[in-house]
């Protein structure tokens, strides 16, 4: 049975992609709600989006795109046998993720102080479309943020594996799959960004 003994990297890659497909439909449910409520309340969404901080949103986009670049290069590095380079790049990715979340924290904090959060008395005064916009904003960026957090944790493990020799030139599918996940999280943000910051 040695045939089966072999590590089937293609199987794990398929597994990861299949998992990402489920993630697409998971976020798909939210995008569905967003598009329907936006088509019902175009003006409210338009004006509510003005509350968003375009600069912070754009900086965050740049951060995530850059982190994706680092992950991609780190995989090529491992394939070339440069584990040290790879580990440094991965660490940088984790820090970029942290920066993303920190900025997100300030954005949320700033809104919550102004009483813009679900069920807040101030928000309840506003129009229905505004309530929905911010409800969606918190839920979608929140769940996305959770994904970023999980990604950071997983990448931290990968840094450890890269340094400890668990990930090698011949056995890197763990890292590759982590990379896929991280890029996916990036893609979700690529869409969240125009939907919440640019619809003004």
């Amino acid at each position: 049975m040695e045939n089966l003994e072999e590590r089937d990297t293609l199987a794990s890659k398929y597994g990861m992609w299949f998992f990402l497909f489920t993630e697409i439909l998971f976020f798909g449910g939210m995008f569905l709600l967003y598009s329907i409520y936006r088509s019902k309340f175009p003006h409210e969404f338009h004006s509510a989006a003005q509350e968003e901080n375009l600069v912070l949103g754009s900086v965050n986009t740049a951060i995530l795109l850059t982190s994706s670049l680092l992950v991609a290069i780190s995989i090529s590095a491992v394939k070339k046998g440069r584990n040290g380079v790879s580990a440094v790049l991965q660490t940088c990715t984790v820090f970029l993720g942290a920066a993303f979340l920190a900025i997100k924290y300030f954005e949320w904090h700033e809104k919550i102080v102004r009483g813009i959060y679900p069920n807040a008395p101030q928000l309840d005064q506003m129009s229905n479309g505004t309530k929905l916009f911010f409800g969606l904003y918190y839920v979608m960026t929140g769940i996305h943020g959770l994904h970023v957090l999980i990604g950071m944790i997983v990448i931290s493990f990968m840094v450890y594996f890269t340094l400890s020799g668990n990930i090698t030139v011949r056995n890197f599918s763990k890292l590759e799959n982590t990379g896929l996940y991280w890029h996916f999280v990036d893609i979700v943000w690529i869409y969240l960004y125009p939907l919440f910051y640019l619809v003004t």
Partner: protein
Amino acid sequence: MENNGSREVSFYHDTGKHHGILAWLLSTDHKRIGLQYLAAIVLFFLVGVSLGVLIRLSLISPGTFMGAETYNRLFSVHGIIMIFLFIIPGLPVAFGNFFLPIMLGARDVAFPRLNRFTWWIYLTGATIIALSVLLPGGAPDTGWTFYAPYSIEVKANVGLAVFGVFVLGFSSILTGLNFVTTIHRLRAPGMTWFRMPIFAWTLYATGWVQMLATPVLAITLIFIVLGRVFGVGFFDPSKGGDPILYEHLFWTYSHPAVYIMVLPAMGIISEVIPVFARHRIFGYKAVAYSALGIAIVGYFVWGHHMFTSGMSDTSRAIFSFITFLVAVPSGIKIFNWVSTMYKGSIVMNSPFLFAVSFIFLFSIGGLTGLIIGSLAPNLHLHGTYFIVGHFHYVMFGGAGFALLTALHYWFPKMFGKMYSERPAKIGWLILFIGFNLLYFTMFILGYNGMPRRYFDYPPRYHTGHVLSTIGSWILAVGLIIIFANLIRALFKGEKAPSNPWGGGSFEWQIPSPPPHENFKERPVLKDNGH
């Protein structure tokens, strides 16, 4: 491949570093996991049906045995257990786990540890649901559909139950992912896609539905929890939300979910009929493709649960149209099964009896599905006992009977013991009679306007309810005989040969029960396996 079973160690013997119960709970052997799932599934089935009997008991004399509050919780918990703990995981996790790798000629599934993990998630989900039933605050009383805004406002432990279902969804997604990858990567040499057993085909289609539909339920349930905890009003009209969107999202999952229930069942029937008819399955490719057809078309018919919901008339028409299309691939399967018997040499053993009654009962269930899938009749029949009749026919008469088929078909292989035929057949007959009395009456009740989820009802429906309840008692007798017979066989049954029925797929070429690594050497498929 010759069979020298005596020298190979059956998977029941512990070989790893753990022993006893731990060796089972930590094992990543797909057969052990499958058996543990089977135990859980049968347990929840028995809990669920017992609740069903209580529902029936209350209905012969509302108010005598319980109050409205208890009744509402009863049918909700009955539905939640039956759907999310029994029938959606049901066939794939128990029989798929045990037999899919063997049928493909593999040693295990693609991700054995992930498989183990799904079992723990399943158990966690089940525990959370059990807590929601038992904790003070009250069992959920929303029905299994958790319709907003009621589910957001009500006091009972709905949040917990919903969270439990969410967790179970994870288990379901990962199982589907595991099986699909297994089928892609671990087929034995020579086993091309069109030489796979049909059961593998149906699990493949099911796996895709699990992966692509369940996440939608997950996010929907998160919205319910967020609504309850943080007051996020996506489905709350006073905050601009739209309750009908909840129904859309819920059924976007829950209709495909009914095919998660029935596709593996169809796979099992496609395995059993040819074996006992001593005849190759008729129209192999058509049966295989129709599984994919059901899975794909089934994704786009969810709106038929919402014909009276206030959805736009345009989309009602669209959904009704697609609903009718999904009947065609189901029909193809039925016709091919029947033709498989043509010019066969049929042996009427108990697995075959269950399989044949599946065809009959599922046809009734499916055809009544068409009646309610039609726009005008649905306006009358929606929300009545006609629907209750329909889904018990497809779920119990379909998937439930397939579970019994599989139990009787694979019992010798799984446990290495033979059960006695006679009690199994008697049990089957009683079950069949009781079943039809219990559920056919519901069609008549429903046609006469008896609404579902009713604790109390006008007296003119009383006769029907009494008949139906009597049916439930007969059915109970049948089930008890069947399970008693199997349990007896576990302890007292004769040793089973490796191929008692003369089956052709790989599992019958290895000893009963199978050895640890299934095959001594990788099997190669030479002839046409089915």
